């Protein structure tokens, strides 16, 4: 009567499951204005306002390049930080995570789909900023250099996701958005993305992933930068690892 044997999952179908999760994760956030509009529009609006309109022709090429790096790092960090920070907290709370764990969703697809979504959004944000920078922002760097910088900065999606995951794992659903916002803005300003820091803030700028990412981007663009590439990479990798481990500990203990 009934055949209770379960056919194995082929590699092709597993791959399809990952891709469909990534697609629907991006699609649903694109359809959620409360998420998509701030993530996609804020960086380009801020950059246009501060980096193009306010700064105007007074800015030298060097400062224009610096503003471009700052706002792009800011824009790239957003999707990962909010995508993980708010969504993981909310989905933990609303039982979606429990439902997904009951389903035969491939291991890792929950996080992989969010990471893919963060990349998709980050690439769109960067495309807008690169266009605005070249057309209106007096950025003096040639396009291939800008694309190389963008590629380096896109790696910042991963630490951003780690910071978000940490917030999402620990913050209650009701306040995760607030924590994510404070962290996002705090990291951006305290790492000197937009203006030079002084005193203690200058000394502790090295604790923020945004600082290391912006230095890597400058190095890739041939701009003046601090520190050395291996150290920046090492700090980003270490921060990411520690945050993911702490989040995984919390999330697995709930199950």
């Amino acid at each position, binding site marked *: 009567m009934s*055949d*209770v044997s379960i056919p194995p999952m082929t590699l092709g*179908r597993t791959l399809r499951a990952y891709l*469909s999760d990534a697609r629907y994760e991006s*699609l649903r956030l694109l*359809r959620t204005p409360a998420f998509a509009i701030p993530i996609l529009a804020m960086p380009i609006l801020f950059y246009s306002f501060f980096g193009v309109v306010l700064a105007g022709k007074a800015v030298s090429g060097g400062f224009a390049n610096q503003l471009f790096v700052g706002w792009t790092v800011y824009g790239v960090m957003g999707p990962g930080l909010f995508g993980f920070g708010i969504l993981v907290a909310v989905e933990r709370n609303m039982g979606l995570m429990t*439902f997904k764990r009951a389903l035969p969703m491939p*291991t890792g697809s929950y996080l992989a789909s969010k990471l893919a979504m963060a990349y998709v959004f980050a690439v769109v944000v960067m495309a807008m900023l690169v266009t605005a920078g070249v057309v209106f922002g007096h950025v003096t760097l040639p396009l291939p250099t800008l694309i190389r910088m963008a590629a380096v900065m896109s790696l910042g999606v991963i630490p951003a996701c780690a910071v978000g995951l940490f917030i999402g794992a620990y913050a209650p659903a009701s306040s995760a958005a607030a924590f994510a916002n404070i962290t996002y803005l705090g990291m951006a300003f305290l790492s000197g993305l937009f203006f030079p820091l002084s005193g203690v803030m200058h000394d502790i700028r090295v604790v923020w992933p945004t600082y290391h990412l912006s230095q890597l981007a400058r190095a890739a663009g041939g701009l003046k930068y601090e520190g050395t590439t291996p150290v920046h990479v090492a700090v980003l990798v270490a921060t990411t690892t520690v945050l993911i481990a702490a989040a995984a500990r919390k999330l697995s203990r709930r199950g």
Partner: protein
Amino acid sequence: MAKDGGTEGAPLASLSGVKKRFGATVALDGLDLEVRAGELLSVLGPNGAGKTTAIGILLGLQAPDAGEARLFGRSPHDLAARRGVGVMMQEVALPDALRVGDLIDQVQAYYPDPLSFDEAVALAGVEKLLKRPYVKLSGGQKRQAQFALAICGRPRLLFLDEPTTGLDVTARETMWATLRKLVKGGASIVLTTHYIEEAEALADRVVVMAKGRRIAEGTVAEIRALVVRKRVDCVTTAKPSTIAAWSGVTGVIEDAGRLSITTTDAEDTVRRLLAADKALSDLEVRRAGLSEAFAELTQEPAE
């Protein structure tokens, strides 16, 4: 790849001696449960009986404190075991912005051999909901969408935790018909419910749970036979308060001049009623329904 006869043989899923506590609350207290191939097993019990926890452990959502859970002969944490399972949970919120059709397509991708999209949609009766965002659905429509997600992967074993809560009569009938069709097609179903009629209408076997334990098990008829109570209905001038004091009488309800008496000794109760009121009319004696049987069983859990 053994073909299973569909009746005896190794169970598809089982709990043996499972204990689980949440803080000071004992949710499961040494529960044994077996789901056999090709059956619809109904798990009945009041709120807090541990039904949802039992399903959670069978699905690997929680780890038992003691005892063992098996799913298709494997650990429920094993992804390969869960590929044979479809599930409809009581409390679940799905992504608001995705449409019902998107959700079905997404969940189907997790299974090695799902139903075709159209087949799943037709079976769950959600044709009209496909283009609607999940957030715009009514409570009942959400349950229908969740049902579609539970069956779309062509699961061998379906866990349904109070699936018809919030459904209108038509939707409930549709779901019942689909469940019968699935069982006929060889699927096994575990269904928890508060609706006694649901177990009576669908179940091959009933397990009654209370306080984290299995207190009775059998066919619907066997469960009903466990209980000696009968209902005596009549129109009489005898006072309910007097009748309630008679030996064997466990309850008297008056409704528009008609009395409904629950008793463990129907013959004696009827004799006394007829003696007390010569004009008594419209007498009816029947075996208690599963609903009453269930209430009795769960009041005082048997050892």
